[in-house]
């Protein structure tokens, strides 16, 4: 039973697919579909094992209280995003399966890393696979997006490893469980630099500038993965380091964290309000969601961490839904929010899913976005940050404005109402709609995990 963990399954899956692909080439067959199904099966198996047996627990990796839940929802979302990607008619190369599986493996390893080195390697695994994913679908400016992602990614990795080395200089160890004896100066510098390094991954202002460009350049279904699972991994890494590993609960750190979070929330809200392209608005909204999760990490209490984890789950599901639904819009060439005439061609279910996803991002009940915000406010209140909560209210008002602005400018609701066209629906679209329905249901059922 010891080896029946999702990480082993994913790893074995990657190896098996590489091997089978090699055999396939020697046999000169071009049946790729089988390998796609195998990848899907690997995800399913990993998900089941996560529920049944929990995660890997060896020297560099150890389970924590939340890892089963986090890995579970990561696998859940990435499974459906994967199905969505391969349900497109395009001829997908096997590189997709391998890099996608590696990215997911990287993000699940981030969750359970118990050493700075293993954490760094896991993030690196996730990042390298993501660069490939962004460039894999060569649309107009995929190259630009991928290069931006790659260069900022490499810089952030360098910064991260520099910070880690400073921490090592201060503490003499990299294991989370023994990072207690510290010599102060290099340590604090190391902490600050680690924030910067991880801030790139989880798109916190001022390390966010790559996100809108990369999100816009890559295919929307890939963006759905990057903005949900990959960003969740970055935020979970923050939790892992700053709450479990480092004894950093000083006033200075709290103020630093809170100001980063508030700046992220406000700046992204205002920048989102002035955008014209839907995908950029969604990108900025995704940045603002990261800010909300981070504000809850910033209080550095157990309550705050629990709230942050639930909120990460909530926004990851909702982000995946809006980007996947937007992928179906994008196929009908809806790019600017004022293009109201094309909206009549999209399917009704994708419009409904987009609508509910936006509601959840904006924090309206009864979706889990609301319960996530509830828990965050609760955590902030119980640590006594009344003013911060009032400030976030104003940011929420701005975000309510731009979210509903998208809905009304795009005439999404009109689309839901006036469905007169009777286009023949293909199976491909049916599958996509089913995926959206399942994810949307998760937005309501997810409340039991709060």
């Amino acid at each position, binding site marked *: 039973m010891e080896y029946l963990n999702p990480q082993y399954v994913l790893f074995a899956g990657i190896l098996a697919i590489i091997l089978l692909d090699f055999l396939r080439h020697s046999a000169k067959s071009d049946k790729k579909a089988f390998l796609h199904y195998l990848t899907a099966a690997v995800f399913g198996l990993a998900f089941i094992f996560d529920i049944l047996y929990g995660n890997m627990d060896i020297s560099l990796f150890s389970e924590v209280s939340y890892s089963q839940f986090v890995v579970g929802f990561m696998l859940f979302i990435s499974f459906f995003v994967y199905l969505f990607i391969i349900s497109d008619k395009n001829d997908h190369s096997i590189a997709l399966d391998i890099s996608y599986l590696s990215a997911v493996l990287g993000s699940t390893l981030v969750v359970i890393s118990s050493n700075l080195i293993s954490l760094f390697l896991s993030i690196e695994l996730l990042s390298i696979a993501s660069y490939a994913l962004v460039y894999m679908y060569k649309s107009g400016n995929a190259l630009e997006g991928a290069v931006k992602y790659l260069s900022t990614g490499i810089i952030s990795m360098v910064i991260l490893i520099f910070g880690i080395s400073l921490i090592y200089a201060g503490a003499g160890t990299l294991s989370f469980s023994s990072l207690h004896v510290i010599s102060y100066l290099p340590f604090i510098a190391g902490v600050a630099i680690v924030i910067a390094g991880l801030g790139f991954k989880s798109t916190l202002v001022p390390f966010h500038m790559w996100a809108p460009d990369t999100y816009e350049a890559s295919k929307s279904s890939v963006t759905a993965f990057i903005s949900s699972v990959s960003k969740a991994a970055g935020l979970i890494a923050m939790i892992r380091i700053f709450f479990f590993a480092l004894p950093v609960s000083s006033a200075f750190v709290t103020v630093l964290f809170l100001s980063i979070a508030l700046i992220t929330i406000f700046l992204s809200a205002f920048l989102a309000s002035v955008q014209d392209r839907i995908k950029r608005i969604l990108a900025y909204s995704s940045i603002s969601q990261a800010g909300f999760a981070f504000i809850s990490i910033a209080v550095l209490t157990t309550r705050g961490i629990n709230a942050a984890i639930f909120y990460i789950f909530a926004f990851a599901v909702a982000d995946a839904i809006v980007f996947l639904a937007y992928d179906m819009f994008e196929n009908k060439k809806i790019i600017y929010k004022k293009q109201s005439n094309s909206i009549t061609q999209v399917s009704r279910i994708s419009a409904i899913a987009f609508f509910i996803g936006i509601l959840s991002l904006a924090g309206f009940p009864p979706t889990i976005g609301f319960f996530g915000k509830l828990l965050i406010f609760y955590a902030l*209140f*119980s640590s006594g940050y009344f003013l911060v909560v009032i400030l976030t209210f104003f940011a929420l008002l701005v975000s*309510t*404005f731009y979210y509903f602005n998208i809905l*009304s400018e795009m005439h999404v609701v009109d689309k839901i109402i*006036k469905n007169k066209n009777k286009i023949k629906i293909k199976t491909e679209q049916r599958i996509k709609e089913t995926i959206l329905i399942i994810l949307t249901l998760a937005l309501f059922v997810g409340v*039991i995990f709060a």
Partner: protein
Amino acid sequence: MVNLTLLLIVPALGILLIILRRFYEKFVSPEIIVFSVMVLNAILFGLGLVFGFGNFSVNINSSISLAFSLQENFITIPFLFLATVVPLAILLFAVKEIKESKDIFYIFYLLVYLSVISVFISSNLLIFFVFWEVAVLSLFFITGLWGDKKKGKKAAMKFLVFTQFGSLTLLAVFILLFLYTGSFNFSVIASKMSLLPSYIEYIAFFLLLITVMIKMPIFPLHGWLLDSYYYSPSSGTMFLSSMLSKLGGFAFILFGFGLFRNVLIAFRLPLISLGVFTAVYIAFTASGQKDLKKLLSYSSMFYMALIFIGVSSGVNTAIAGSILLMVSHAFIITLLFGVSYILLKRTGTNEMESMGGIMSKMPILSFFLVFGIFASLGIPGLSNFPGELLIFIGSYSVAGISLIAIFGIMLSTNYYLRVIKQSLFGQLKKTFASLKDISRAEVITMGFLSFFILLIGLFPSLLLNTLGGL
């Protein structure tokens, strides 16, 4: 025993029937479904009054104390009466006005209906909040999609952003309560209020006050009122004025008086002064209006200011009066907005100066307009009188300043009489020579509303006796 869930299951089934209507499109129109749902619910409510209501509770997530629990509280019955009866009358105007995408409109209609009822009976504050927001969202869509073609969307957005701020502050109050009592259940919180430190009580009360002042609305926070009332479809305006504003009053009584009574009593004088100022200010504003719908919107706010005075005096008499006034005002304002809608449809204008002499052509409509205006003015025997009387008796006993609001009533007498004079009396304009009086369905609806106005006016004790805890 009538279980309270039945009151929610019936409209929820109605929504489901409308969603599935594409399978039997030819047989039933959505209006009939909505009508039968509401009649059935009203019957259930009547049965409940006789046999008593049963509570209901299902635990969903115990770590955040989320449970779907329904229970009566000390002021539920009058509000439930309002929420089950008034929408029956609103339906007629919706039928007349809404011609496009009816199915979705009636889904939103039933959602407002359902969520207002649930707010009145839910005892878990999270469920309360969920339905509070659903009501706001549904009205956002009703205003934005079926309202004025040009300005409806902007008005809806203004409404949403304003009320969303109020909702967030209400959420903050709930979280503060949860923080110190460890529960979202209203009765548990009420029994543990002593655990709250006094400064938290003050913070929570002021957050609640913001919510109430936006929702009712009261003077500095009423900026959304005119746009959303004016550019909504008339059924939306009726919902806003008769139901949504009452949610504010309900929350003020339930939490402000029910939980934070000490703070309410400590701040009684400034709050009453604010209410008085709002009342007089808004009476002056309404006096300057030339458009009937705008005038009615402001006058609706005037009565909410009186209710605000009543509740913030913190005296049982005045609070009973406020509840009575809220119920009666819901009926009266629906009647008056109905008349204004019919006038708009028949004459093509809501400007009072361009009407005139309509009495001779439309005697029945004129009767209802005069009836509504007299009821509004608090003529004894009609429903506003007992409420206003109780409010002034109660609040005078603690703060004499409240009597200044009577000056506002004098002002409203002035502008209401101007409405009668300009639109009903005088020379009939030639363009109106072919006006027809109101149809039978309209007479029945108006008569239905007038019946309740008269009933509450003559027998206010019917409602007052249900207020057990006051």
